[in-house]
């Protein structure tokens, strides 16, 4: 009986006007998103290649003097991800450039170079955007009148006059909507992959296909939850227009209200210092250190062994440590504020979906933080390498100055000897482990709401 009901529901949905129109919209959006992505990604990749070439040229120039190589600030820019069609993980909005030298990882910055400031800041038309906005809305639109609509049409009583339990009816309706929405999404994804394959500009390898599989699973979980919300609003009211309003309120609450209030909560519950206050502290520390420095701390000479170079190196090291102390603490506060705020937004299934995408793709905040931590380790290696290189040079007094090259080796160095920072891809095993709690949360949410819907439906007056 369940399968009969399920098939009937599927047929009804497929022949409905709302499905046909939705299908057109979904396929159109997936196609537009993919075509635009291919062009934008190719451009970003080409720009990154130019930037990378320029970086190598600069490094070669700096390598003519080992001290220049160690002290001059370099920037590491995150490479565009080919899997950002799945989800850009809001990487455009995060800092994407790290400033470092052999002595310190100074800061993380937002690199605006390929962003047009005259355009509105909007999200990319990625698969995750389509699912979180369009598919979740469609799931509600398909589910809001499942019960209340049938009651209005007086078909619900007729169905229940058969020997079938209410639980089975609810389950069949739920499963049919879930299947249709998921199938529509998968169709959109397949078209998107087809367009990308034809273009030949996006690498579609096993990793990408595994990530796509992960994305479909996550999508299924989100749609399952949103559909339950639709079902719940349908059994909550006897009138389909009221059900719709309740559904819309759910959607607005999770897709708009919770994300929109995040900044408010961040500032009220987890405030951090203002940037200019931190800058003022650094400036004050700088002034104090300079005022208390022994005389001759700013003296220099063409002779590396000039004894005041040691004073100069000491002062420069203290100045850098002063800046590092405040900056590092500020950046850690920033991470903490972001993480705490994000835990509040987990109330929204759409925020959970975004987090799961981040885990699945190894992008966004996770990528940023991993790189930040890895760069700290790399910087230690880089400095050790430089110190070892410097130790071999008899012409160097080995007085380490993080900002200048007066008192360390001036010898040229082969670029192949220098340790290079490369981004580590987060392994799939680690991604799966991290995704566990979000999946559990989504499933728990779905199970609880389905149970409530079931209880309400059992008590539902079909007359």
């Amino acid at each position, binding site marked *: 009986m369940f399968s009969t009901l399920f098939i009937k529901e599927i047929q009804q949905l497929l022949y409905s*006007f*709302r499905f046909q*129109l*939705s299908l057109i*919209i979904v396929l159109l*959006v997936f196609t*537009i*998103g993919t*075509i*635009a992505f291919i062009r*934008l990604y190719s451009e970003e990749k080409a*720009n990154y290649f*130019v*930037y990378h070439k*320029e970086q190598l040229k600069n490094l070669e120039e700096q390598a003519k003097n080992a001290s220049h190589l160690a002290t001059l600030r370099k920037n590491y820019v995150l490479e565009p991800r080919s899997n950002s069609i799945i989800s850009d993980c809001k990487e455009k*909005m*995060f800092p994407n450039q790290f400033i470092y030298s052999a002595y310190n990882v100074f800061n993380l910055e937002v690199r*605006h*170079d*390929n962003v*047009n*400031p*005259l*355009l*509105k*800041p*909007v*999200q*990319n*038309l990625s698969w995750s955007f389509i699912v979180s*906005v369009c598919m979740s*809305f469609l799931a509600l*639109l398909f589910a809001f009148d499942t019960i209340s*609509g049938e009651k209005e049409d007086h078909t619900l009583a007729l169905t229940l006059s058969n020997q079938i339990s209410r639980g089975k009816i609810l389950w069949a309706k739920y499963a049919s909507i879930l299947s249709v929405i998921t199938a529509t999404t998968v169709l959109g994804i397949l078209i998107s992959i087809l367009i990308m394959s034809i273009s030949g500009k996006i690498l579609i390898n096993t990793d990408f296909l595994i990530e796509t599989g992960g994305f479909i699973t996550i999508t299924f979980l989100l749609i399952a939850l949103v559909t339950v919300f639709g079902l719940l609003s349908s059994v909550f009211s006897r009138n*389909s*227009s009221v059900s*719709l*309003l309740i559904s*819309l*309120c759910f959607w*607005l609450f999770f897709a*708009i*209200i919770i994300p*929109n*209030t*995040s*900044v*408010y909560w*961040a*500032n009220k519950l987890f405030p*951090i210092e*203002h*940037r200019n206050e931190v800058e003022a502290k650094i400036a004050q520390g700088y002034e104090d250190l300079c005022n208390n420095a022994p005389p001759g701390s700013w003296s220099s000479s063409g002779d590396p062994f000039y004894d005041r170079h040691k004073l100069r190196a000491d002062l420069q090291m203290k100045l850098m440590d002063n800046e590092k102390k405040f900056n590092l603490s500020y950046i850690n506060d*920033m*991470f903490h*504020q*972001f993480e705490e*705020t994000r835990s509040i937004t987990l109330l929204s299934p759409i925020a959970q979906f975004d987090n799961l995408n981040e885990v699945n793709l190894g992008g*966004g*905040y996770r990528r940023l933080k991993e790189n930040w931590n890895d760069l700290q380790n790399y910087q230690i290696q880089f400095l050790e390498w430089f110190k070892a290189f410097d130790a071999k040079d008899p012409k160097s007094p080995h007085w380490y100055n993080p900002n200048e090259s007066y008192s360390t080796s001036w010898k040229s160095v082969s670029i192949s000897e220098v340790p290079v920072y490369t981004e580590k891809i987060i392994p799939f095993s680690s991604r799966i482990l991290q995704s566990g709690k979000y999946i559990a949360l989504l499933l728990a949410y779905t199970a609880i709401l389905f149970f409530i819907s079931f209880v309400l439906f059992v008590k539902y007056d079909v007359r």
Partner: protein
Amino acid sequence: MIWHIVKKDFLLNIFSARFIIGVLLCIILIPFTISVSIDEYKNQLRIYAVDKENSEKELKQIKVYSGLKPELIKYPEPLGILYKGINQNVGNKVKIYLQEYPLFPTGHASTRDNPLLNAFFSLDFITVLSLVLSLLALVFSYDLITREHEEGTLRLIFSNYTGRIPFLIGKITGVLLSLLPILFFCFLLSTLFIVLSPDIKLQISDWIRVAILFIFSILYILVFILMGTIISAFVKSSSTAIVLSMLCWIWFVFLWPVSGSYLSKSIVKTDLYDNVRNSLDDLDKEYGKLEGEQWGAIQKRLNMRGTNWWNASGGEDGYFETYGSPSETMEFHRQLNTWKEPIRLSYADRKWPVQKAYLDGLIRQQKMEKNLSWFSPSEILVQAVSCLCRSSEKDFLRYMDETRQYRETLVTYLKDRNLFEKYIYFTPQDPATFVSTADFIKGNNNVPDHFNTLDLKEVPTFIDIPAAIDTSLKDSFTGIAALILISIILFSGSIIVFNRYQLR
């Protein structure tokens, strides 16, 4: 008769669940939205005060004209609380250099203290209004005709002397009047928050702009009511009408604005700013070579073996300051500046076409986004509102034009007074106290360490003239005209479709 229909629909609507839910939605959304915007505005004001103080302090410490690099700090736009526009993408500081025309402002006023929080989007008042009101307009209007048809009251109404057009006008007016209290409530709530914030001072002209925003919002609601009406007249059942209305809503309010913006980036390519910077750096290198040659030529002309300085410091954009150096060095720098400053200015003129080409590319991309946004009423509203809130790209480009004009005025000031050729351009020391090279080598250069700062009263100052109301209205005219045109088309369409509506 129209009045009776209006009254009946108005009363039915305001006591309905949808009205209560609409008001509740606004009660939840508006305070949060306005609070976040006010917080952000206060932060901008704080940054403005700090930046302004630093800029003025820096200017007061100048002792030579080569150090005159005024930094213009833009006052945060108070109407940005209602609509941020592109102000959220750009900085608040413009430093005036001789070697380059200002292209984009720098600074952190537009970004949050924690850039990671940019990942959490925060909507402004107008965006929330465009989302909620369009939704409510469709929810109130999707069953204008279908419900009457389903309940069988439509035939009953037309059995009297009621025309179809007056009926339609009455229905539409009824819905519009039902939504007006919600709209008014939203504006009232937001203005209350603004008025109760002591840091925010809106001028009378700003309040007039808010009033015009209210009128624009009514027009916007009308477009969606008419959209709901035409759908209601087009289909037979309310369930089909609501689905169609909701699909229209998600398409026009969410999907098309993002698709349009994403497509415009993909259709119109812009150069990478790194490449533009490289071209500008190449010109700087070319100039550097010329300066090197001139350096040698002047030394030769003055029969100098080398250059000796006593207290010298330098910085960006040709800033150089010295005192206690021998007269030969002073003369060398005077001659070098006489040659180099006009050349640096000419290099700025050579750099400008490169910068302009980049800017034109960005503008072309923005125009494409704007053209694509004509397909969405919410985007049209946002365009019109951005002009009224002085946060449109036109306002930004106008401001940058003003900064470039100011640079020209400053250059003219320096040229007219022949300051490049004077010692005061690089030394605060009185030329009568310059020492000869021989005395300098002997160490006889007893120069005081303290010098007066420059009196900059006569130096032109920058006055930011924000767009007047008439300019803003002119800028937003096309948007408003488009909304009116869409309303007329939709209304005519509703009449045509409803006239053919089968009452049976």
